[in-house]
């Protein structure tokens, strides 16, 4: 029997997903026995040209990690979609934009200014900034275009499955690969696989009580009381709004869940939902208070929660309802602010 064809690609990503994949341990030998690797830039030398040469649907399983940040990312997403039977959004960035999509809170111009011009460690005396097309004596040099907004994979091509996580847990990856190797029936397309159906709290052993938050703390401001739910201690934890599958590793290490496994099936917008959950249980305000004063007091209290957008959408910005911020330089098209 012919080996199944496996591809893995990294778009706007850090490489953590590849490491996680290799972290499946001895199982990698099974992978090698069952799959023929036909494209995996991180570990084997294939060219885009090779992939273009494959017939459509040639690749049985393509694990696509990383967000869509550049024209190259998008182009390869289309190419791999065309060549793959099953395209999997692999890891938080590919599923929901991930950390790169936090850039959606600012603009491309700001990013370039910061990276190429203003960063203290930048050494760029001529102020060279990448251009998609540069004229040189020999002709035109083209590099991929840096987009104004980061997207998830499914925002540019249809995706069959999602394996969330930053990175996905090795045992979850192994389980999914096992399914494919055994030709087991896969769940209905569009499903999240390699993760749970309830939230991280379900896996989290910390003791939970009726939730009431008296005060917010950033992780460095408080040594958490061991064994007790971090959120109840005022340490922001996205566990309640985040899909299980990781084994609640972060909360058990005293660090609030950062939300990398993304929202649950019935939640559209992870950030809005955790905002609602957290704000609801903050112990401030009562029906007998003066309306104005209470609003000010509550506003001040909520203001002590640092960077709500970045905290609540740390991994899901691209997949959120708003997708990006409206900042100077964005959204100033013809219909923009008068």
């Amino acid at each position, binding site marked *: 029997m012919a080996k199944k064809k496996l591809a893995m690609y990294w778009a706007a990503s850090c490489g953590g997903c590849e490491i996680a994949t290799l972290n499946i341990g001895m199982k990698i030998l099974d992978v090698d026995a069952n799959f023929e690797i036909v494209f995996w830039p991180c570990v084997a030398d294939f060219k885009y040209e090779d992939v273009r040469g494959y017939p459509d649907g040639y690749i049985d399983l393509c694990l696509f990690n990383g967000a869509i940040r550049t024209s190259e990312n998008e182009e390869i997403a289309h190419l791999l979609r065309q060549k793959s039977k099953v395209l999997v959004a692999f890891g938080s960035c590919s599923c929901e934009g991930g950390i790169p999509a936090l850039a959606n809170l600012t603009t491309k111009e700001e990013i370039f200014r910061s990276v190429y011009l203003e960063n203290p460690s930048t050494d760029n005396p001529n102020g060279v900034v990448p251009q998609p097309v540069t004229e040189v004596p020999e002709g035109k040099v083209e590099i991929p275009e840096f987009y104004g907004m980061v997207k998830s994979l499914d925002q540019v091509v249809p995706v069959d499955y999602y394996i969330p996580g930053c990175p996905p847990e090795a045992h979850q990856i192994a389980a999914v690969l096992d399914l494919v190797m055994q030709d087991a029936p896969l769940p209905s397309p569009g499903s999240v696989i390699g993760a749970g*159906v*309830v*939230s*991280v*709290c*379900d896996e989290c052993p910390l003791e*939970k*009580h*009726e*939730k*009431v938050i008296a005060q917010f703390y950033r992780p460095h401001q408080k040594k958490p009381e061991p064994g007790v*739910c971090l959120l109840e201690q005022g340490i922001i934890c996205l*566990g*309640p*709004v985040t899909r*299980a599958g990781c084994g609640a590793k972060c909360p058990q290490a005293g660090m609030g869940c950062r939300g990398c496994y993304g*929202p*649950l*099936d*019935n*939640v*559209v917008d992870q950030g809005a*939902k*955790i905002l*609602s*959950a957290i704000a*609801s*249980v903050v112990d401030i305000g009562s*029906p007998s208070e003066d309306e104005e004063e209470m609003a000010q007091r509550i506003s001040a209290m909520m203001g002590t929660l640092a960077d709500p957008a970045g905290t609540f959408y740390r991994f899901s910005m691209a997949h959120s309802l708003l997708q990006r911020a409206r900042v100077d330089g964005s959204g100033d098209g013809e219909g923009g602010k008068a």
Partner: protein
Amino acid sequence: MSEERVGVYICHCGTNIAGTVDVEDVARWAGEQPHVVVARDYKFMCSSLGQELIEKDIKEFGLTRVVVASCSPHMHEKTFRGACERAGLNPFLFEMANIREQDSWATNDRKAATQKAKALVKAAIERVIHHEPLDPLQVEINSSTLIVGGGIAGITAALELANAGYHVYLVEREPSIGGHMAQLDKTFPTLDCSACILTPKMVEVDQHPNITLLSYSEVEKVEGHLGDFTVTVRKKARHVIEDLCTGCGECERRCPKRVIDNSFEAGLGFRKAIYRPFPQAVPKYPVIDTDNCLWFQIGKCRVCERFCPTGAIDYEQQDELLEIKVGNIILATGYKLFDPRRIPQYGYGRLANVFTSLEFERMVNAAGPTGGRIVLRDGETEPKSVAIIHCVGSRDRNYNEYCSKVCCMYSLKFAHLVHERLPEAEVYNFYIDIRTPGKGYEEFYHRLLEEGTHFIRGRVAEVTDAARQPGEEGKLIVQVEDTLIGKQRRIPVDMVILSAGLEAQPDAREVAQKFGLGCDANGFFVERHPKLDPVATMTDGVFIAGTCQGPRDIPDTVAQGAAAAARIASLISQRVVQMEPVRAHIDEDLCSGCRICNDLCPYNAIVYHEDRQVSEVITALCQGCGACVAACPSGAITEAHFTDEQIMSEIEGILWDVRPQGAHEAALA
């Protein structure tokens, strides 16, 4: 979902909607929307013909969903749900678009109103295709009723229900029932003696086997819902053992401590530190006023204990908390008289011979502090002239904008009583308008005109003792613009009576919150519908009667008390009632036990199962607010009929013309 067959009906409501909204255009356009198989406009959808139209279409076109665009769902949602049900469609597969109150009546701009109507109709269509058939909840009704407030409203309601064979707990915070009516002398316009008609009813309450009277008691806590409330009542310590007390009154006679009676006698008379508010008090047991009792204050005396023939005095008695189970509740908590000190220019509290209406009631009462004699504050001098000032604290932007409804009539009654007792005295009534609608009321006014009362139309500017002209010395001068002759006048009188208005009880908001009611801007309890449901409230199983809902006179109060009782009797006789199934539900398979929701429910309807580590909503306790639904970070809680999917779809529909996908469609419409 794609196979849903929607019927859309656009109501003209005569010209109420059609005058502003192009209903034909909306109907035509609705007919072109996906899922819509029939769309019509019709003169009056709520008419029986309109409803038959829906029923016929459901059968003929096999409609699976119905949208009616007409008035507010608070008006006719029930009507159209009924039509659906008669045609065999689950009533919850219906949705209403409010294009009258919230569209055609709120603007003159035909184009904008039509556009808005389309958005509201589109929202309803998008929402209704996600509706699910629901069955009403069945609730068993406990046949006992709690009535809070033992004034004439509460007494009437209690007797009605008790006579119908149902048990009543009547809670009154004062030592006796009777309320304000027990303080009044005569009642207008018939001039019956107030006590004479009230006390037999009070006694009936006391003796009725179906009434448990909890006087000197207050409701602490209310839990539960229609059919099954658990109420905690604090029975305050009387320091008198009711089982032993015979009501002989010996303690009261022997008590050495005299106290000004600011409550029943409106400050004009005295009572003892152990007292019954008035001789006919029900129940007959006295109560020790611990703030004034010598034993409680200085640790000496114990005279009452010594003289009590049955040993009923108990200084150690503690408040008692009683838990009672009832199916329904009536609030009949009454009113508070406007405090005329708030209008300093009328001099009450500063000028001795300015009296409040309640003081005057006590004064003219034969059982009152002066034995019915009308005298000045010195307790001796009979006034030769009396001014009665209407609308004190009422119809006045600085205090209460509303009319207190009873003051005109009781002011006329006062005038009559002065004429009767002091035939020589001149009586002046200062009024803005005389308002005497009511059976026999206008006739009473005419009688007063004939009795020689002076009626001066104008709001009194000031009551002063600063004499400016001869004849004013030693008098109170009422400064007023007589608007009928267009002149400023100064009328010197010996006595001034301020006809103070009715206000909500100072703790009305607190009480409202306890029982889950709303208060209006003036603090009066809000009825379910001002015209069609005046004694019910927004909270099922909680009714209101009497002046806690707004100023009214005794006949109206009695009618409301009886009406509230009738509403409850009807619920009890049904034994099981159906309630809206709009409730929250937790899908245990999706619940991670994060416990975010646990503390959010004001009705304690959410319980956490430690063993399974999941939360559950107790359906019967849930009131369907949806606070937990919006907070549930897992999306494990849904609210029936208000699901995320339904509301999200509604949002898409309501923005159909501005959504990027919809804008094109909108341009073509």
